[in-house]
């Protein structure tokens, strides 16, 4: 920026005006040129009239400086959003909610060209705050600013109880403002009402490490505790988008399934009903079926067993044997069905039929060897064996769907619990889901 000859009325001023506190004599530095209205003596906490060349005492408050030491020392400079700012003022404020005082800190930042900006800190959560240039539209439950919708979070009174440094307004300890916060993470829209005057400001969430980097502070920032009202959710993707993607993939799977179902031959190759009769049973109960042909490419074979059991079981030892190569697939299937009544009412267990699919069976001529074992209390039972070649298998789709469902559920749950912690601190603790819609980490 170029500067011409300085005008007569406004000669350049020193960087910080040196003055002394009329109460205790400590040096007072004025950092915001003529902007300061009040300045607080760092030693004796007299609030002084910065416009008065003799710094008249306006108010004095009792405070141990150690109680509230600014994390960013006054006079520290840092580059925030492309502009150099100097920390010139600090205040601690609190609100009392249900008898408990919640304290937060506000840092006043100054640049002689760009003006003022604020940083707030609560339990390790930071916000970069500036005064709104546009007027937000607000009703009780929500507010709109620059086309974005903000949800009412909390209304409370903010009480100033500790001040340090200088302020471009008449700051006093004991001052009270009615504050209303509306959130749209990572932003917070706040209105502060003193008497009739309402000031709107817009804040954006910042992490302690960002503040430490900006102001080149030693050590590490205090750890953030809990979830802050406008803290961005760790779930950076929109939960709704996940479910849309999930639905799309499920529809795709369904189509693939339908396709495979359409192209599967589902060819019946054997359907026989056998009878187990204990009285006729010999020592060796196994037998073989007729030979059947499995055609086409290597594919699966489905074996379905049906037995009209009721409070009994039947167990079948199967072997699918290739007549030519003698390659065999052994498997056992149980069919059992029980039912009854107890104190909880009627119950059933098991089914009268069973299905098994044997994968990758090459084409050829096959037969089944069957060895039945039957509940000793059952003298006689018929059972049906059905064999089909090349059936569609749906289990793999269920696994794929589950593999997608699990992350979707986990993300939704994380988002839900985060939003729940956020809103549990608000005037609208989550009894229902209505607060959560539209605030689950969209945008960014």
């Amino acid at each position, binding site marked *: 920026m*170029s500067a011409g000859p300085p005008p007569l009325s*406004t000669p350049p001023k020193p960087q910080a005006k040196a003055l002394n506190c009329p109460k205790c004599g400590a040096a007072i530095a004025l950092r915001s040129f003529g902007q300061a209205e009040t300045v607080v003596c760092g030693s004796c906490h007299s609030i002084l009239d910065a416009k008065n060349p003799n710094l008249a005492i306006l108010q004095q408050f009792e405070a141990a400086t150690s109680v509230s030491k600014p994390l960013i020392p006054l006079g520290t400079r840092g580059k925030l959003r492309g502009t150099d700012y100097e920390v010139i003022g600090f205040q601690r404020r609190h609100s009392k909610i249900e008898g408990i005082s919640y304290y937060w800190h506000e840092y006043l930042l100054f640049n002689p060209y760009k*003006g003022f900006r604020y940083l707030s800190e609560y339990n390790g959560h930071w916000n970069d705050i500036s005064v709104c240039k*546009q*007027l937000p539209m607000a009703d009780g439950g929500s507010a709109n600013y620059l086309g974005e919708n903000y949800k009412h979070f909390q209304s409370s009174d903010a009480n100033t109880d500790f001040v340090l440094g200088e302020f471009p307004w*008449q700051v006093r300890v004991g001052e009270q403002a009615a504050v209303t916060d509306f959130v749209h993470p990572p932003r917070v829209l706040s209105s502060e009402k003193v008497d*009739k005057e309402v000031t709107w400001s817009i804040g954006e969430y910042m992490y302690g490490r960002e503040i430490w980097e900006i102001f080149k502070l030693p050590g590490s920032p205090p750890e953030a505790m809990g979830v802050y009202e406008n803290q961005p959710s760790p779930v950076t993707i929109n939960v709704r988008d996940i479910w849309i993607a999930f639905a799309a993939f499920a529809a795709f799977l369904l189509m693939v399934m339908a396709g495979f179902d359409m192209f599967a031959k589902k060819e019946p190759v054997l359907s026989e009903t056998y009878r187990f009769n204990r009285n006729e049973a010999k020592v060796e109960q196994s037998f073989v079926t007729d030979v059947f042909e499995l055609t086409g490419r290597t594919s699966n074979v489905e074996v379905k067993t049906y037995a009209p059991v009721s409070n009994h079981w039947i167990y079948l030892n199967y072997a699918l044997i290739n007549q030519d190569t003698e390659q065999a697939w052994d498997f056992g299937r149980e069919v059992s069905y029980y039912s009854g009544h107890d104190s909880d009412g009627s119950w059933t267990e098991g089914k009268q039929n069973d299905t098994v699919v044997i994968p990758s069976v090459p084409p050829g001529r096959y037969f089944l060897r069957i060895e039945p074992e039957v509940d000793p209390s059952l003298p006689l039972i018929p059972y049906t064996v059905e064999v089909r070649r090349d059936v569609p298998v749906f289990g793999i789709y269920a696994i794929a769907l589950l593999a997608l469902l699990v992350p979707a559920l986990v993300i939704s749950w994380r988002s839900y619990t985060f939003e729940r912690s956020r809103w549990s601190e608000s005037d609208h603790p989550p009894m229902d889901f209505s607060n959560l819609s539209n605030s689950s980490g969209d945008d960014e």
Partner: protein
Amino acid sequence: MTHPVSNCPNCGAKIVFRWSSSVQTVCEFCKSILVRTDVDLKKVGQVADLPPDSSPIQVNTEGLYRNKPFVVVGRILYEYDQGGWNEWHVMMNDGASAWLSDAQNEYAVSFSAKEQNLPAAAQVQVGQQLTWSNQRYTVSVITPAHYRGVEGELPFQYWDKTDITFVDLRTESGKFATLDYSDREPTLYLGELVEFDDLKLKNLRRFEGW
């Protein structure tokens, strides 16, 4: 553009009106307030040196508003119980007069508007809505203020004005209005809040250490 030139009736220093419609100026040398009664300048008062203030703008600062160049030709420094603000009188390159206000580095550009049916000061309340040119404005603050000082060229005479009520109005789109109750008839200024960077200001005041 040729500038009307005259001499200070008090000290004889050359007085140049950079804005041809200026009614008043302050002699840069002896601080006499000079009112132009065309050609001859009449000395009507004297201002004390302006109190040190912190506006980065100064007389001769140049900038751009809506792609139109302007130059700062004068200012009024107002004071109220919570501080002060500057109304910089600017001359647009098309000869129009405008105000660039700097209230704690919050900048707004406004122009005198010829609207009728302006409410009386006593009728205005914070939160009230008023409509001009199909734009609805909301009263944001009512400020009783007084002149703290003047500098450079102004489009009116200031010297008999002391306590004034200002009503500031805002909109959801960043527009800005001021009702000025300096005179018997209220005056309306319409404009908008502007970003410092967008004004592309040159010839700014320098702050030591910045």
